[in-house]
């Protein structure tokens, strides 16, 4: 039976890693800019599809680099041309415009890549299973866990230990004061938004060898990412990490131990958080 628990723990960690990649950017643009970017799921989907195409041309590893770069560029362009304008107009236009972008992206993906779900094989190096505590676990899933952990650590250190991170925290806390001491908040926010888009794209391309890519993933990814953001607290990287772990553990262990309730379990937790701590579990520690 220990094998079963090891397997499920790894499954939960792997799911948490993917959730974190999608949620980090969403949470930060939510918290730092007050921007409700529902198009974030679309960037995740584009990351997956671009990753598949690049992988067919150059292989998996180049795709792992190029696809996030491409989604980061798309994110930056969207921010510069469209989203920055609606950002100032309050949540309703933000929701409508960014959700409109989801529909456009979904249709675009269907036109370019078709309706049939696509897959990507993990690179040869990670295609086998690894023996762990008497069980075989797919090496690729271990790689996803490692990547998620590395990125979470990197982002946390970047925000808490660097000058850029300090500027970012200042700009979030009090934009006017930050501007007056020479921090270029607009540019900073553009950078954060671009990074978030790149992370979503990375999440997309990393997810495809595990789950297949379909045009519905823009929405299916968005919902758990929003839940993670609300549970963890907006604008907080540690919140995104904690939220991703909580949601993943509930879903994975709920699916295994209490399958009848697994579909609603996460919503119960969401409701509890909203009632007891509406700002999210870790929102007090802004940005960190």
């Amino acid at each position, binding site marked *: 039976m220990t094998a079963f628990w090891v397997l499920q723990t790894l499954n939960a960690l792997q799911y948490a890693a993917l959730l974190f990649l999608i949620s980090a950017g969403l949470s930060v643009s939510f918290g730092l800019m007050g921007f409700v970017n529902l198009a974030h799921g679309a960037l995740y989907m584009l990351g997956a599809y671009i990753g598949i195409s690049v992988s067919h041309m150059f292989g998996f590893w180049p795709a792992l680099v190029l696809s996030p770069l491409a989604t980061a560029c798309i994110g930056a362009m969207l921010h510069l041309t469209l989203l920055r304008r609606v950002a100032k107009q309050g949540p309703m236009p933000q929701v409508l415009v960014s959700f409109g972008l989801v529909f456009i992206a979904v249709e675009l993906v269907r036109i370019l890549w078709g309706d*049939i779900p696509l*897959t990507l094989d993990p690179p040869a190096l990670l295609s086998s*299973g690894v023996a762990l505590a008497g069980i075989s676990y797919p090496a690729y899933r271990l790689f996803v866990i490692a990547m998620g952990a590395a990125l979470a650590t990197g982002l946390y250190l970047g925000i808490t230990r660097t000058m850029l991170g300090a500027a970012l925290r200042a700009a979030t806390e009090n934009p006017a004061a930050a501007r007056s001491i020479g921090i270029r908040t607009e540019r900073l926010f553009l950078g954060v938004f671009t990074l978030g888009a790149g992370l979503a794209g990375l999440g997309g391309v990393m997810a495809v060898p*595990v789950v297949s890519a*379909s045009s519905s993933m823009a929405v299916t990814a968005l919902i758990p990412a929003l839940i993670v953001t609300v549970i963890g607290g907006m604008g907080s990287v540690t919140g995104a990490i904690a939220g991703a772990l909580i949601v993943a553990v509930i879903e994975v262990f709920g*699916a295994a131990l209490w399958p009848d309730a697994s579909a609603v379990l996460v919503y119960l937790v969401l409701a509890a958080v909203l009632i007891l701590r509406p700002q999210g579990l870790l929102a007090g520690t802004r940005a960190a």
Partner: protein
Amino acid sequence: MASEAAGPRSGLTVAALVLERSSPPPGHSDHGAAMKALLAAAFTTCLSLPATAETTVGLLLPASGNYAALGQDIEDGFRMALAEAGRDDITVLREDTEAKPQTGLIRARKLIMQDKADVLVGVVSSAVLSAVRDVVHNAKTPLIVANAGNSDATGKDCSPYITRVSFSNDQLNRPMGEWLAAQGVSSVYTLAPDYAAGQQMIGAFSAAFEEGGGEIAGVEFTPFGKTEDFGPYLAKAQASGAEALYVFYGGADAISFVKQYDSFGLREQMPLYSVGFLTAPLYLRSQGEAAMGVIGALHYLPSLDTPENNAFTETYANAHDGNLPSEYVVAGYDAGRLLLGALDSGAEGRAEIAAALPKIAYTGPRGPLEIDPATNNVVQNVYIFETVSDGGRMTHRVLDTVRAVRDAPNGCEMG
């Protein structure tokens, strides 16, 4: 096609007859008679226009969401049947049901009331089928079901206006349960998405498997449309100690499931059996070698070696970059053949078409096909097959054929 003559409805045929009869004998010039004939022809053509009233077909198919690709295949197959018959008196309207019962209901109402469709074709999702059942029945509009396997639609909820040409969930899973028990497999863990089709498929399989002496070691239904990662469920199946795994998945789930099953190295421990949709041609290319050795049961395989199927697959492949038709293409095609058969028998309008549909029988790509008048469900062969690699290209090898599988009435009382 069985018959090219379109029956008494065709105004052009009538006009041609008039013209023929009244044209002067060759060599005899009579302008007056010719003129009269022409007028008569024009007149009869005008008069008979209402009789040539085009048949309006409403396609009720998903064009977006998880099942969009299935909808496209069914439409392709349906249009293939019309094109083959050279019919241009059939108007085809298309409505997107997505995979949502509510949307399906709205679209069905629109086709019936606003577009005055004579017949509806389609419905991919079983949940959509149960949603539109009453509307179709009450409006007395024939519906040719080209996919949704909801057993109740030709069981306790059957209707003289619902004819199914695809399959029922019972029809595919019952033979598989019997067959698997007969193979000596003693215990099975089952997995399927948590909605009507998943529950019916697993229910029918389990009943037949247990009747044959097998034991169900565990049953799990995964949240439909939400589960993309089957890792947690595969780990649970593995821990159950069952001898084999039996599943139903379709769409993107089918691809993910097979790849994940393979990546967890379960192939050696727990052989995978399924309703054949899991490794259907639509998904096989994406699944690749991960699908090797999966055993399934289905009513159609593109690799069936019959003259009808060889001709069919060739026509389809020529129009689709060499790809092979899926069971959805065939269901669309057979829905078209069924409708054309009914029209050719002289049926016209909703009631007559509904009455004529169950009388059509022929041998098509999937083998002999007839409609059971007791339930209006299709009677057909079920093929049990293994997914194998044929020189790097994945294909299906038939292990067994269960002939002319017919559903029990299951509470159907045809009104």
